[in-house]
């Protein structure tokens, strides 16, 4: 963050280099998913080691990264899963973090890995909801310690898009995130579109959530757009950001004293639908937001 202003950027995907080339001044930060920069061959019997890097993608990213800030955005470590952390993956993430100079690293407050998968790196198929209990907190705390030591940078966790919240948990999600920050110094990647998903599907009230969340936790914001399918709204990263999301960013953003980056997420398969012009305009709006948040007096949280 320069003089209190958050960086504006994109979640990395194969379309990002063309956007950076077209509008270099608008992309200051790139969120990098390390899992998309390797091929995981665990138990495939190749005899060539588990992780094979996608050399072309990494070289292209390094070119894009010139003069920009990079952060890591992992999806494979599944910190809330009640299974040991994948140390080989931690080592590979740490290696990439060093090579690409991640300024911080985020993971998801969602469960992706299952204990009895048919392959060790098998995934549940989507991010599943977490029970916000003390037991889960202790599991995450232990893994955060490992991750922080391996990467040597701040670790933040992202709120997920949840269709079936775990009922009757000991803490609400904001309370859980607040505790992670208060006790472990683990900040929050606040995905405002995931809150919008909750609102559209009737599972949460974003204003109530944001009033409860300690704003000092928030180090990064994600915005995105989604689609409706069979009566539910998804975080498909397929459209521009809805108006409600922008409204929450402007309403609650002034409280986020530690905000470092504002990131737009889109999946490359929707690049044609969004259009280069559409994404450029989104980035321009994000710069307007970043300017507005850095210009306003910091508001105190009264939640």
């Amino acid at each position, binding site marked *: 963050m320069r003089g209190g202003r958050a960086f504006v950027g994109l979640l990395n995907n*194969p379309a990002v280099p063309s956007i950076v080339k077209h509008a270099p001044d608008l992309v200051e930060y790139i969120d990098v998913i390390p899992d998309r920069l390797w*091929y995981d061959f665990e138990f495939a019997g190749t005899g060539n080691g588990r992780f094979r890097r996608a050399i072309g993608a990494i070289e292209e990213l390094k070119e894009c990264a010139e003069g920009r800030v990079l952060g890591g955005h992992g999806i494979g470590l599944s910190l809330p899963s*009640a299974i040991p952390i994948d140390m080989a993956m931690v080592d590979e993430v740490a290696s990439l973090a060093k090579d690409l100079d991640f300024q911080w690293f985020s993971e998801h407050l969602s469960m992706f890995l*299952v204990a009895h998968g048919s392959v060790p790196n098998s995934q549940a*198929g989507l991010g*599943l909801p977490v*029970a916000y209990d003390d037991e889960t907190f202790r599991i995450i705390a232990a893994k955060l310690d490992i991750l922080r030591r391996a990467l040597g940078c701040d670790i933040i966790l992202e709120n997920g898009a949840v269709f079936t919240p775990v009922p009757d948990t000991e803490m609400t999600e904001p309370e859980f995130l607040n505790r992670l920050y208060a006790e472990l110094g683990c900040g929050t990647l606040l995905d405002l579109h995931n809150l919008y998903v909750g609102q559209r599907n009737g599972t949460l009230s974003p204003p109530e959530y944001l009033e409860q969340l300690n704003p000092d936790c928030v180090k990064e914001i994600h915005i995105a757009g989604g689609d409706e399918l*069979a009566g539910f709204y998804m975080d498909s*990263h397929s459209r521009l950001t809805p108006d409600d999301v922008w409204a929450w960013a402007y309403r609650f953003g002034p409280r986020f004293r530690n905000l470092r980056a504002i990131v737009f997420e889109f999946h490359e398969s929707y690049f044609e639908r969004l259009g280069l012009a559409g994404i450029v305009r989104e980035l321009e709006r994000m710069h307007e937001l970043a300017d507005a948040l850095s210009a306003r007096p910091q508001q105190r949280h009264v939640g």
Partner: protein
Amino acid sequence: MLVEFQQALADLVASPEACRRARANPEQLRLRYDLSPREYDRLVAMVNHKGMAWNCMLYRANRLSPLVLNLPEFCRALGPRLGPLLSEYSERHPNTNVHFYLECDRFCRFIEAKLSEGYCLEPDVLAVFRAEHTNIKLSLAATQTTLAPSLAGRAAL
């Protein structure tokens, strides 16, 4: 146990049939998984929540996604047969492999096994399948070398 609760949740999301069985007879969750009373109550509530259907749909869409991305013409040519084949494949292989070329290769070998068991595909569909499976094998081989391609072939979750 939390690990059992998490496994049960993942298994339910992966199988609409398991969800139906759990709704009809929730006690079988206790027989299959080592759950605390709180975990059992939570699972029963979640499987009866309207959002569970959305979890199942998204799970299925995420399983389909790498196949559609990397075997687009074959998926198109299969038409209405894709759904039942995907269901059978997902039952046999409940967890997706994050290496999507491995996942696609595994699906292709599943199709090969079906063909050897007498499953019929029209000659033009078979030709498309063989061509795209060859591409998958080449892409997979490339990822094992320093000539690894870019991010193509891996969709984000």
